[in-house]
């Protein structure tokens, strides 16, 4: 009932049309946006700002990419450590072989 009361009043108000705004009204709003957002001194204009803009608007994707990067680096690190251990084993085997031939 309460919200219906409100809606009835809003419907009535809709009939009271205000005069059209000035012809350049929306243009002024766009100019303000450009001044505020695009040419704001706090914003850098080089490539890093585009990356930051992307990060702010697609934060879920950025989190996903960061997770993938961490997992990839862990796997790569494990692989590198594994191959180093293999190399050491080879060196040990070679040195044992050379000792035995002596």
């Amino acid at each position, binding site marked *: 009932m309460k919200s219906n009361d409100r809606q009835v009043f809003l419907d009535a108000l809709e009939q009271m049309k205000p005069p059209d705004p000035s012809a350049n009204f*929306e243009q002024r709003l766009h100019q303000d946006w450009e001044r505020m957002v695009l040419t704001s001194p706090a914003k850098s204009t080089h490539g890093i700002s585009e990356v930051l803009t992307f990060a702010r608007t697609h934060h879920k994707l950025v989190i996903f990419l960061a997770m993938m990067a961490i997992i990839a680096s862990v796997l790569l690190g494990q692989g590198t450590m594994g191959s180093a251990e293999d190399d050491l084993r080879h060196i040990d085997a070679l040195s044992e072989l050379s000792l035995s031939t002596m």
Partner: protein
Amino acid sequence: MNLFFIGQHRTEQALLRKAAAGDPNASKEVIGLLSLPAYSLAYRMLGNKEDAEDVVQEAFIRLWKSADSFSGKSKLFTYFYAIVSNLCLDQLKSGHKGVFEEFNELEHGSSEDVLLEFNGGITAEGIKKAMDALSTKQRMAILMWAYQDLTAEQVGLAMGMNKNSADQLLFRAKLKLKSELKKGDVDEIQ
């Protein structure tokens, strides 16, 4: 809250953030979506085209600055209307010193006791005349109540008065509106 509305609010949140981050298409969309309804609200509150345009311009500047604060829990309209209403209030306070300070309790009752129901159609002239008959405070309170879906307590908070005073103000605004519409023989209200 309905999942559809949550999704819609999130879309609006993403759109606003894109605009504030420098996306020109998003900014065009936000301006196209909000500018005219906000102008109508400001005009109804201030009654002057130039003042209404200035207030909406200032409101957009605040919107771009505070884009990160919009949590997407409410409609973007509601969030923006709050900014516009507050700026209108500031404008009225600065232009009409004392208007918001005095408060005389002439009638006693709750705003919820008065229902605005119209039996037939209502003309634009009739509602304009009735709205013009309200005091600045009454017009402000009833528009905030209607457009922003605010309770008497929230209206009071925005206008710097306690809940009872705001409730009385809304009560008297509704009564006055009804009597003006009856007086003008514009419509029958139950």
